[in-house]
């Protein structure tokens, strides 16, 4: 089932204006649908109440998986599956396993985190998410309210009294 979202949004040109508006909306207890911007706005996350991303925890787990795959894999191959003597060295030559173990740690962490990022954010090749306003990727910052959560008249009034340059409406494919 495709749900549609009716959005009321205000357009801003300055980062600090939109941060002030977000702070004001939160203090009034208004539910903010999302904030859109052409650049990451530093200082917005705590004001908006965004939780810290857990991507780094996922990255650590992927990395650990890489470490274990490489180290245990090489250990099994050279001591159990097909032991060969290279230059009179022991079968389980731990120091010479270090470079590949390191490389696979980095490889697993990087691929895992990148894929997780796109999957969690609902992005991928060919994904055509609805864009709220074409100017977001250029120079405008947008503060959006969902009509199901905040009454549209109240949202419009709030945006007009909080420095929004324009107040617009749009229906997004959710």
């Amino acid at each position, binding site marked *: 089932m495709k749900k549609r979202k009716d959005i009321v949004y205000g357009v801003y040109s300055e980062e600090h204006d939109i941060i002030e508006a977000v702070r004001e909306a939160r203090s009034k207890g208004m539910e903010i649908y999302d904030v859109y911007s052409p650049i990451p706005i530093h200082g917005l996350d705590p004001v908006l109440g965004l939780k810290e*991303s857990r991507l780094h925890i996922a*990255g650590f787990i992927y990395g650990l998986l890489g470490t274990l795959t490489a180290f245990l894999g090489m250990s099994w191959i050279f001591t159990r599956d097909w032991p060969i003597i290279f230059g009179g060295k022991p079968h389980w030559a731990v120091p010479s396993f270090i470079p590949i173990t390191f*490389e696979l740690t*980095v490889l697993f962490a990087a*691929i895992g985190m990148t894929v997780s990022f796109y999957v969690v954010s609902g*992005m991928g090749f060919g*994904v055509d*998410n609805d864009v709220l306003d074409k100017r977001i990727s250029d*120079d405008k910052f947008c503060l959006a309210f969902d009509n199901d959560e905040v009454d549209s008249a109240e949202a419009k009034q709030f945006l007009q009294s909080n420095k929004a340059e324009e107040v617009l409406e749009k229906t997004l494919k959710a």
Partner: protein
Amino acid sequence: MSAPVSSIREPLVLGHKTYHDITEDLVSPTEKAPPLSWILVFIPAVALLSLGTFAVYWTIYVGIGTWNLNRTINWGWDITNFVWWIGIGHAGTLISAILLLFRQKWRTGVNRAAEAMTIFAVMCAGLFPMIHMGRIWNAMFIFPYPNTRGSLWVNFNSALLWDVFAISTYFTVSLLFWYTGLVPDLATIRDRAKGVRKKIYSFFALGWTGSAKHWQRWEYLALILAGLATPLVLSVHTIVSFDFATGIVPGWHTTIFPPYFVAGAVFSGFAMVLTLMLIVRKVLGLQEYITIAHIESMNKVILATGSIVGVAYITELFISWYSGYVYEQAAFFNRAFGVYWWSYFGMMFANVVSPQFFWSRKLRRNVTFTFFLSILINIGMWFERFVIIATTLARDFLPSSWSYYSPTWIEISIYLGTFGLFFTMFLIFARVAPVVAVAEVKHILKTGGDQYVGEDAVKGH
């Protein structure tokens, strides 16, 4: 009223830009028909690529005997070119990852092009180990996969296998880093485009909307990938140096190789970034985004790494003398005064003497001088790899097997072909995506640009 500027830093974005101006300036080159200057460079690039393709085909069809390698000198231009291209590929990740961790804002002007350059340089580099195997159709044997030969596995104790893992990891991580950085900019092009172009960019922009949560995750991802790529970039050239340092040939078997190779890689990589960016800056008119301050910063890195390389060369000589070991001493005597003396002195001049000019602020800020010096350093770093590889092998253990080597036209054509590949890819990239990171330049506009709004801002300038 003129814009406020930081009292202590040079602005990194000039010309009183607004966010919209930045979009216009950086995205519009991808929307117009290619200028004549682009076509004039693209044609020779494709010609070189064709020549190289033929030479690779001929090598595979006839065999490795089309090269002049012999029993004594079994690595020549092939591995020299491999190490040279890999070294060039190091600047991109250094600029994106290490300078991101150090919060160096000037990286935003050059990181996109440098990352693209890294990917194309690693592609050129990867070609050489593949074709120098001789039987390229068995190339997959270098990967450990269950097979019907046993399973017979690869030798995980070999530095050459470490190289396989290091370079494939490096290529993959660089690609992910570069593409993830590119996504918001592709979305910018998508939102300006119409028709088929819009469809294509929609596909590649991955559905980017600019949501606050996406930006938060995007910054996290960039930061952690940078944290991973920083030790990675150091490990890759360390492992490349192990290809030599774990051998027993005098002149290769030295513990100084890993730091010396890494410094050399950064040195040659920055030289290549400068060569490319000075051309791009001129052709696309990006003087307000790649400023003299950017060029000076890069020249400082060149001076630092060039001096490290110089110290390494001299340390090597000192240690061979100090070892008291006559064969080690002979190896270095042959290196400097033997049959390939010209490559040794070419290397010494281009890599040790020439970067010292950058102690002068005036020369660091001189675009023409920087351009010529960057090319000189590229040549010098090629000589360095040739000196290490061919010169060392030419005078091995038995004087009866001493030899000389010069390349055939096939080997020269393959090298020229990699230039063709590199420039063809870069020129196509410059047509389809912004060569300067649009979102990242916007991001520093008010903290590092000429519209600085920090506490120490001075009014007017």
